[in-house]
């Protein structure tokens, strides 16, 4: 049998889910588990959740086991500014001055220019590269990012710098190179992406080493219980990415930045795995202890950030679902300001009814639900105390808290839709979002979802659905995710060259005049497959597609001198459908 364990490390809880995949490729939930998240030690929370789940496997016939891990490790590291000191080497050419690009970290500009068609208009100045690296090492740099303007059109300068680092600065090897992380244009975002990647690479490597050791140990324990030899179980570990795809853990060592914002992605994947696709515009609300994450599905597909994720104030090129997080959750603060109840945005701590001491929205739920969970008396006491300021009975106060919570959620949703409709910033499957989007349905998950979602939907005047396994549906989403990978093909028949930056490929076309759209598509699809295999994103059922395509005739002096093809080919994003019991 094939099993998948999904683990989502959230702000408050770490959820885990064990899926078994049937012959038809559908998933069935065997067990859900949760453990409190320890921010100072994500590793232990992860291991604890894993241990609870793996008990269930002992009775099963386990041939094939996958673990899909969504952690906040890299996101937190970036937000908190953790990681290694980085030397960031850039080449630019005509345009914005590097000082105007607003980098939050020092960059070293070296000579060398590539233009928009990938032609070298000024050679790389190796001596400047060498002295920039020397200076950076002297100042304590332990990692290096190398990014050239227009490097996806011609990675030559970046590759030459990589060679130099390998030979003369082996301590900084391997560097993060711009063209390998993204084939898309946007130099400042590429620089940010590579800087972050280089900065957190060691953290990711250490985390992965520990996970690997633990898993080998768990696996040994598992085989001891089942009486099987460990080798018979094929174990693969994947990390979840911001675009809802997975990447094989060992390959993620060089691309840690892609694992940012996997939490919101896990919620969206949970919604996709556990519901039938809908043509309407759906809001996915993941109401957690600390925050509520809001995402949007249009025509059954998640909205994506047009250029890439924004994390810790850094604009990146990391493909990501569109998602906004607000400080509103079951453990948020409750305050009374100018005659109104306000929830959040900070976390108050554990609810009084659950053993803490602060008043939280969860206490209000415990009171209204008459103690179906939590300590009714403690909830009553904390609400009574608070109602001395606000007036009214504890029961009325609880209602006011519910109302404030739902109104704040609705205000956030309305704000998001106002933004979506005014700026051409977001795409659905690379097609611009149509104007006039409005919420037509809500899908809810997260601990307090069952309580709040019907009320929020009522305020918005739309139908709703609370996901099965809603408390840990993000872990189901992590388990149900499949790998994603994409390449960019750029063929310039006038220059006679094909470039696939993600694969370090620059090839001369043998017969440029005969290179046509069909050949370009074929090459793009083959390359996407090759790339998926290289980065551990290949799986037998994977389908490949060209999902962006531009073809231009190049005319110079009234003659057609060639064609320009730009294509993005990818593993078609997919999800394992999970059938609720």
């Amino acid at each position, binding site marked *: 049998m094939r099993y998948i364990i999904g683990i989502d490390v959230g702000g408050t809880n770490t959820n885990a889910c064990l899926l078994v995949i049937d012959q038809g490729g559908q998933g069935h939930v065997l067990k859900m588990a949760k453990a409190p998240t320890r921010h100072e030690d994500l590793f232990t929370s992860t291991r604890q959740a894993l241990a609870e789940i793996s008990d269930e496997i002992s009775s099963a016939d386990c041939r094939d086991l996958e673990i899909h891990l969504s952690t906040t490790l890299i996101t937190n590291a970036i937000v908190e500014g953790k990681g290694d000191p980085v030397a960031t080497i850039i080449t*630019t*050419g*005509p*345009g*914005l*001055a590097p*000082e*105007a*690009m*607003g980098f939050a970290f020092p960059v070293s500009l070296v000579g060398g*220019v590539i*233009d*928009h*068609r990938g032609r070298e*208009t*000024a050679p790389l100045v190796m001596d400047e590269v060498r002295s920039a690296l020397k200076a950076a090492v002297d100042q304590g740099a332990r990692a290096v990012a190398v990014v050239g*303007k*227009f490097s996806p059109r011609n990675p030559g300068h970046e590759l030459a710098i990589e060679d130099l680092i390998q030979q003369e600065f082996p301590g900084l090897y391997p560097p993060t190179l711009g063209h390998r992380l993204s084939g898309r*244009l*946007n*130099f*400042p*975002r590429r620089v940010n992406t590579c800087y972050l990647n280089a900065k957190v690479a060691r953290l990711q490597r250490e985390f992965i080493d520990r996970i690997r050791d633990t898993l080998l140990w768990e696996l040994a324990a598992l085989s001891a219980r089942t009486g099987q030899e460990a080798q018979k179980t094929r174990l693969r570990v994947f990390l979840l990415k911001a675009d809802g795809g997975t990447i094989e853990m060992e390959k993620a060592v060089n691309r840690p930045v892609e694992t940012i914002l996997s939490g919101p992605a896990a919620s969206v994947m949970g919604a996709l795995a556990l519901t039938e696709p809908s043509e309407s515009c759906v809001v996915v609300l993941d109401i957690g202890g600390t925050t509520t994450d809001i995402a949007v599905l249009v025509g059954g597909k998640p909205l994506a950030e047009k*250029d890439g994720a924004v994390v810790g104030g850094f*604009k990146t090129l990391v493909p990501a679902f569109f998602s*906004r997080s*607000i400080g509103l959750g079951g453990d948020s603060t409750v305050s009374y300001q100018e005659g109104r109840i306000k929830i959040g945005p900070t976390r108050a701590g554990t609810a009084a009814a659950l053993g803490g001491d602060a008043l939280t929205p969860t206490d209000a739920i415990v009171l209204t639900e008459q103690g179906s969970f939590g300590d009714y008396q403690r909830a009553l006491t904390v609400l009574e105390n608070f109602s001395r300021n606000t007036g009214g009975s504890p029961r009325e106060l609880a209602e006011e808290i519910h109302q404030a919570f739902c109104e704040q959620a609705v205000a*956030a949703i309305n*704000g998001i839709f106002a*933004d979506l409709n005014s*700026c*051409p*910033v977001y795409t659905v499957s690379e097609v*611009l979002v149509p*104007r006039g989007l409005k919420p037509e349905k809500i899908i809810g998950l997260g601990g307090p979802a069952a309580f709040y979602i019907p009320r929020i939907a009522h305020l918005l005047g739309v139908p709703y659905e609370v996901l099965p396994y809603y408390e840990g549906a993000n872990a189901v989403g992590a388990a149900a995710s499949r790998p994603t990978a994409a390449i960019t093909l750029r063929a310039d028949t006038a220059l006679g060259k094909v470039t696939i930056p993600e694969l370090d490929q620059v090839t001369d076309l043998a017969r440029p005049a005969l290179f046509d759209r069909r050949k370009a598509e074929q090459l793009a699809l083959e390359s996407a497959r090759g790339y998926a295999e290289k980065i551990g994103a290949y799986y037998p059922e994977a389908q490949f597609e060209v999902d962006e395509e*531009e073809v*231009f*005739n*190049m*005319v110079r*002096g*009234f*003659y*057609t001198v060639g064609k*320009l093809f730009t294509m993005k080919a990818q593993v078609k994003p997919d999800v394992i459908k999970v059938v609720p019991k």
Partner: protein
Amino acid sequence: MDTERCTIPQLGLVFFPAFDWAISPDHPEREERLLYTRDQLVEEGLLDLPGVMEFRPKVATENDLKRTHICIPSIPAVLTKAHLIAAGGCITAAKAVMEQKVKKAFALLRPPGHHAMRLVHGARGFCTINNEAILIEYIRKHYGSHLKIAVVDTDAHHADGSQDIFYNDPGVLHISLHQDGRTLYPGTGNLDELGGPGAYGLTLNIPLPPGSGDRELLFVTKNLVLPVLEEFQPDLVINGAGQDNHYSDPLTHMQVTAQGYAELNKLLQPDLVVLEGGYAIEGALPYVNVAIILALLGMDYSRVLEPDGQRDLVPPPPGALELVKKEVAYLRGVWAKRREIDLDKIFGTAPYYRRERRIYYDTDDILEHQVDQIKRCNKCSGYRVIYSRAQKRVAREISVAVVHLPWHVCADCRAEAESAYERLHPDGGLDRVYLQDVEKEVFLEKQ
């Protein structure tokens, strides 16, 4: 939620490269024209700058067009969806500025418009409808008909379409800097084209000798354009930003650099910038547009240099600056005395000023013969009747009459214009008769 929105962004950008529209596959005005510019803007990350906000272009409506143009025989017969989006994109940019969503806006789009005149039989100079004129009429309709607007057109070709539309319009100051018409399409834009009897001195043309560069362009800007603007006190300044003055442009003979364009915009500080021509699509446009955007943002543009190292830049011919200085001196004289000049000496004493013109549509190969009659009126700028005959090669000639009522038309002119429209019959040689009443937004047609 979004703190960047709390202050008004410096620059709104409306980008519409019309990647699926071309006049013909190998025409300079083809799909590829803004491709490299798009690549450069995206790679520079300009849209991520905190001072920049991107807007989606709206689609221009029928009335947006009819306020400016008479499309003959009909709107769908002469234009495409791409034209409507380019014009609509200019309106979007104008709205963003007028409603203070942004301080300035740049409509970086194609197809261009400044050769399109009030009457449109087809395309001329790659233009079918006049994007700038359409946005100006939109502004006057929606934000106040008394708004004073200045257009500074810096395309290498004379902005004869915009000049035609605003020739007799006292609300619009139209200044065009261009390569001397004796050496370049469309051939007009001489020093003595100064506006009609209702707006004399509000059309200014500065023909620049071929080979003029940054020095000549900036001299005119500092010594003519800025002082004239200072006195006119416009509510809005629009730059018709043609980029074919660039030294590498294949269609013209000018020597302006990306730095020159940036300097021009820094001096001019236009509220709205609308792209016009510019056909050095790889070597100039990507850099000129980045330079303009940085100048409008008030950012450092000193690093925006052409990657060819200005290899093909030629110094201006001897005497170019001297000639330009004389032109500037002449026009400043006209400008200073524009209110004292005896208009009867220029336009005659007849109750109607009448001019006859032949207009050639190079793009569509149409020859038009036009008679334009402007009522001499001292209460308003005067209503007009325009008779036009046009013929495409050996096709049947089409003959029309247009009665045009300008903004702030006086009661007498209105009565006379309305009866003129009644009187004109689509027979006896006229295929169609049109009435264009911008103020009441009444657009009639009979055939």
